[in-house]
């Protein structure tokens, strides 16, 4: 029997977090103020992830920090943030948001990650996403996330300090992402987010200079979608935990691809620059129509289908 798209169940559960639909705002995008996070939630996102927050305030790098390149964006913003103590006010202002609020956290030691995560949860975070993957700040992010031992220490420390779900956001800038995912899950991570940006750069030929002030940054957008998809596929084979897909998702078809590869939910970032806030609703509409056309009743039924031999 073919169902009407409005009868399709798009809800998903990721490590106990109930989401009305599988779309989420990706970290680093618009997530620094309560007002914009609320705006995104009202636009139809199933959950929102904040910009990464650390223990101390930071200005990030000078501009240029974000530039458009062929098939995507290149950024090295440098984790600007007001520090978790001040950011706690923004989190508190999101009580009754109606969708889960996941606070992205970074630190320069396992203890620092744990402290920031604890303050975020005390302020009202529904879950924590560990930034183990920022490719352009030394001493944190990908420098921790490329080393399974360090990952275990960070995840372990955070899990001991908070009782909410903990997601590990991984970097594709590693030879074996499945191994990294296994390390995170074995240390207690509840889910994996894959992937962060791909280390990249752009050089201006007229002035012979790297364009980003930090010279090297991370590539996002459609250019990295096939890489992200492969990462999700490999992680699904390696671990028995929910995966949140991220990287270049711009339409319902991309979302379906990630879910077939094994993602339980998908994060949207760069595409907002092109499609605007309506992207969350348009992906959900397209997803429901696809599921109806293919004879599914709920979005959960397609997770990991591409692995069927």
């Amino acid at each position, binding site marked *: 029997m073919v169902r009407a798209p409005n009868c399709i169940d798009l809800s998903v559960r990721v490590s106990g977090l109930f989401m009305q639909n599988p779309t989420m705002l990706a970290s680093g995008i618009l997530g620094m103020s309560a007002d914009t996070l609320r705006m995104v939630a009202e636009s139809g996102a199933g959950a929102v992830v904040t910009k990464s927050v650390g223990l101390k305030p930071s200005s990030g790098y000078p501009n240029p920090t974000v530039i458009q390149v062929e098939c995507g964006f290149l950024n090295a913003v440098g984790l*600007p943030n007001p520090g978790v103590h001040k950011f706690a006010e923004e989190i508190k202002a999101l009580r009754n948001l109606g969708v889960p609020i996941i606070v992205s956290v970074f630190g320069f030691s396992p203890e620092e990650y744990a402290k920031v995560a604890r303050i975020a949860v005390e302020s009202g975070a529904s879950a924590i996403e560990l930034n183990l993957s920022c490719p352009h700040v030394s001493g944190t992010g990908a420098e921790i996330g490329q080393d399974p031992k360090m990952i275990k220490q960070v995840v372990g420390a955070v899990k001991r300090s908070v009782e909410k779900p903990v997601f590990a956001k991984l970097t594709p800038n590693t030879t074996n992402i499945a191994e990294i995912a296994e390390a995170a899950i074995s240390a207690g991570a509840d889910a994996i987010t894959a992937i962060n940006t791909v280390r990249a750069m752009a050089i201006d030929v007229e002035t012979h200079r790297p364009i980003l002030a930090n010279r090297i940054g991370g590539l996002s957008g459609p250019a990295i979608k096939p890489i992200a998809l492969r990462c999700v596929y490999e992680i699904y084979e390696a671990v028995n935990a929910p995966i949140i897909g991220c990287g270049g998702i711009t339409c319902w078809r991309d979302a379906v691809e990630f879910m077939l590869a094994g993602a339980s939910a998908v994060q949207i970032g760069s595409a907002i620059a092109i499609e605007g806030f309506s992207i969350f609703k348009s992906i959900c509409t397209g997803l429901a129509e696809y599921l109806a056309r293919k004879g599914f009743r709920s979005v959960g039924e397609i997770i990991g289908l591409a692995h069927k031999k």
Partner: protein
Amino acid sequence: MLRVVRILDIKVENPYVKTIFFNDEMCTLAEPGQFVMVWIPGIDEIPISISSVYPDGSSSITVAAVGEATKALTEMKPSDLIGVRGPFGRSYRVIGKKALVVGGGIGMAPLMLLISKLIDRNVETIVVNGAKTRDKIIFMERLKNLAKSDMVSVYFVTEDGSYGLKGLATDVAEEVLRSGKVDIIYACGPESMIKKLYNLAKAYLVDMQASLERYIRCAVGICGSCVIGRYRVCRDGPVFMMEELREVESCLGLIKYNEKGERVPV
């Protein structure tokens, strides 16, 4: 995408302000109030409004030396290279038949394209150009030439009275509003000026559009650095309509996010 362009010419507007001319096709398509991200290689990248466009493919930005990046930019020479991205953002929209255009200091720059458009559309236009002192007034000649048109009258205002009327741009704006000659205010300048004009617009029941400034990084609406309320200055603005100004009234002239994402006084 970033384009690197050669500076064609530089015009000294006053001891602190220069207009930089360059060739870039995209920039000539700029609507009044739109801005470009200007890359000063090795220094910074900053948002600056387009101050003129010409049919020959050239455009200009007008910049006041206030910080490291703007100082470096005003010290550049013809044939030096700068990068431009954009034009970005929402422009002024021509509404109504009688306009009051108020520019404070360097805020006059994006209003020049608007005034040309108002003249094209046969809108009766009163321009108030405010500056602290005579030597800080910009576009004096351009505005005097525009004032030759029957459609345009221009008032220069300085805080110390060294040129034109003495006082604040908002004082003159209030007199114009009291006379009932206008149905909309177009503004750009210090946020304290915009807040005052916004209050005047409410008091005199006229419409208003104002260009706001915040710390901009991406310019395409994804990084969240420039938010005011639920709006992104780079994408939803920089020009905001009256009803949007009302929505962000509690921040206007008072609170902004700095480059760290901390709430600080404007």
